[in-house]
């Protein structure tokens, strides 16, 4: 059965076995992404948002136990042959990795690393690949792309590495970009530049932006809020942020400095991922006896889903 979407995730769960016991990093995620759609996945550290991004590309270690299905263009990612998988990664799906300064191999020139990806994806060869790499570097806002092409990663600042990474990820014209915390650790000035540039370069592709920054999430069309390995609220960004239905989403919005820095009570820990019932109930003021049943991600309005029995 064809669902039509670019990416269809059904019941995706990832568990890590640690010495202290199993941690359910993500649990039963359902996600749909259409072509040319941008989706922000928002959540705080430890909610499993990065794991989700890696799980979509089948990039998790052997210690992770993955269940569920990821369909990319109706093909099951977890049943692919090695060659098909290698074509998928860095061909159809590109990852903009998390920490810019340690993402490049320190002994290889930036340009060569971009070229490596372009040649691997079969877009161009030789001189053509070089041209393309330089072209994308200049599109990423470098005024002297040739110079960046020839430099080694340690000579670039964090923000410059981030831009080079984005240029690299998009140089193969992927159908889906997964940007993992593209604004982490950047100051206000660069943040806006980076986001603008990312959207500009990815205008022909779909994008999943994983972030903890609601400001960055605002630039995406749709938003999914994650808590303890689950999606707790999903919908069009404007509507969700203006009228949040889940208590946690509300809390996140109100905790922003511009909205009065109201803290959410209690604290989150990794092992509440395994808790029974609503995982947020300990921290929720509206919690009642109903909340000891695990709530489902219900559709509340058109194209909006909330995982809360009070919503």
């Amino acid at each position, binding site marked *: 059965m064809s669902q039509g979407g670019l990416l269809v995730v059904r019941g995706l769960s990832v568990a890590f076995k640690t010495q202290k016991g199993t941690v359910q990093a993500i649990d039963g995620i359902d996600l749909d992404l259409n072509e040319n759609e941008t989706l922000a996945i928002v959540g705080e550290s430890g909610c499993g948002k990065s794991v989700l991004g890696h799980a979509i590309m089948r*990039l998790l270690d052997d210690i992770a136990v993955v269940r569920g299905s990821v369909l990319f263009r109706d093909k099951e990612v977890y049943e692919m042959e090695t060659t098909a998988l290698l*074509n998928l990664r860095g061909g159809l799906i590109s990852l903009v990795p998390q920490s810019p300064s340690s993402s490049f191999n*320190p*002994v290889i020139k930036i340009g060569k690393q971009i070229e490596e990806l372009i040649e691997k994806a079969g877009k161009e060869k030789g001189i053509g690949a070089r041209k393309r790499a330089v072209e994308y570097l200049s599109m990423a806002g470098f005024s002297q792309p040739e110079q960046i092409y020839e430099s080694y990663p340690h*000579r670039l600042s964090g923000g410059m590495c981030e831009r080079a990474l984005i240029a690299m990820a998009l140089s193969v014209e992927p159908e889906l970009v997964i940007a993992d915390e593209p604004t982490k650790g950047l100051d206000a000035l660069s943040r806006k530049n980076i986001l603008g540039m990312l959207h500009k370069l990815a205008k022909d592709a779909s994008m999943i932006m994983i972030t903890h920054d609601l400001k960055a999430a605002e630039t995406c069309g749709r938003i999914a809020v994650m808590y303890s390995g689950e999606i707790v609220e999903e919908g069009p960004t404007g509507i969700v942020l203006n009228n949040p239905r889940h208590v946690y989403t509300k809390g996140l919005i109100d905790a922003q400095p511009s909205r009065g820095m109201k803290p959410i009570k209690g604290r989150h820990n990794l092992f509440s991922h395994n808790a029974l019932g609503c995982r947020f109930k300990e921290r929720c003021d509206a919690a009642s006896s109903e909340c000891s049943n695990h709530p489902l991600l219900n559709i509340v309005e058109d194209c909006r889903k909330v995982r809360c029995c009070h919503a």
Partner: protein
Amino acid sequence: MKKPGSRTAYILGKLARYCIAISLILTINFFLPRMMPGDPVINLLGEDARNANHFDKNVIAELHKYYGLDKPLHIQYINYLFSIKDNNLGYSIHKKLSVAELIGESFYWTLALLLPSTILGALMALIFGSISGFRQGQLGDISLSIIFVLIFTCPCFLFAILTISIFGFRLGWFPLSGFSSGPSSGLNPLFDIIWHLTLPVIVLSLANAAYIFFIVRNMIAQTMSEYFIFVAKSKGISERAIIFNHVLRNVMPPFISIIALELGFMVSGALIVEIVFSLNGMGTLIYDAMITRDFPVIQGVFLIVTIFVLAANFFADLLYGIADPRIGDAASSINM
């Protein structure tokens, strides 16, 4: 953009260290016979001098004069430096030959042992270390690690003695000693030498591979856990390409300099292996000299060996400076 540092500064800094090291060695070599307990003449000429002269005071005084020991120390030092420059390392009364000649003969034999063992040892360490590093925790890694730990714990000379007694004595596959069976045996001389060198080279290269094996294994494992390897995976690059283009490329520069640093150990090992296998290299030379207290020879060998090791290290540093782009840049970034 951070400023690129200068590679020349790096090389000059290194060069300064080598100059200091060489002058240190020369100084040690100069002062030891003069400062150590005992008559400096004896220390300079070896115990044979004492026997030959029967403690004749006049002769000793003459020798003092002949060797310039009555002059002030700094003049002696300058004379000493000039004599080194002229390739004059002293005279062995015991062997009735100049030390430079003695060393000149044996140096090539030591090289004949050292070079193949270094290359072989480095290759073994690189190959097995990589296998072990990539498959960390798996059966292959564990068995390789156990084998190399055992070799590591075994002193070089014992390892040599054991191989000789098993493969030479009991099985008789290889000759017991020497570099060749002599011209009369009718064997092809090159083949003969190779046949004689097989055991010593295997012993030496294994012993040294054991040192480097663990370093390589862990460099590989560490590089594999770096974030940029994960990024490379996310780019969809095949495992083979990741190993060769990313991991090994990062491991090579430190590997080169480790090989060079290990050369000091290699030389020590070679000296000992030579003694056990009775090969006429510098090891046997120094061993014989030690037994007969032939100090000039000991000193000469020490000087030559050290300079050889220093030269090799300098070469490796140059290579490293070319291979690793980060060289020289470290100092220019300030932590704000």
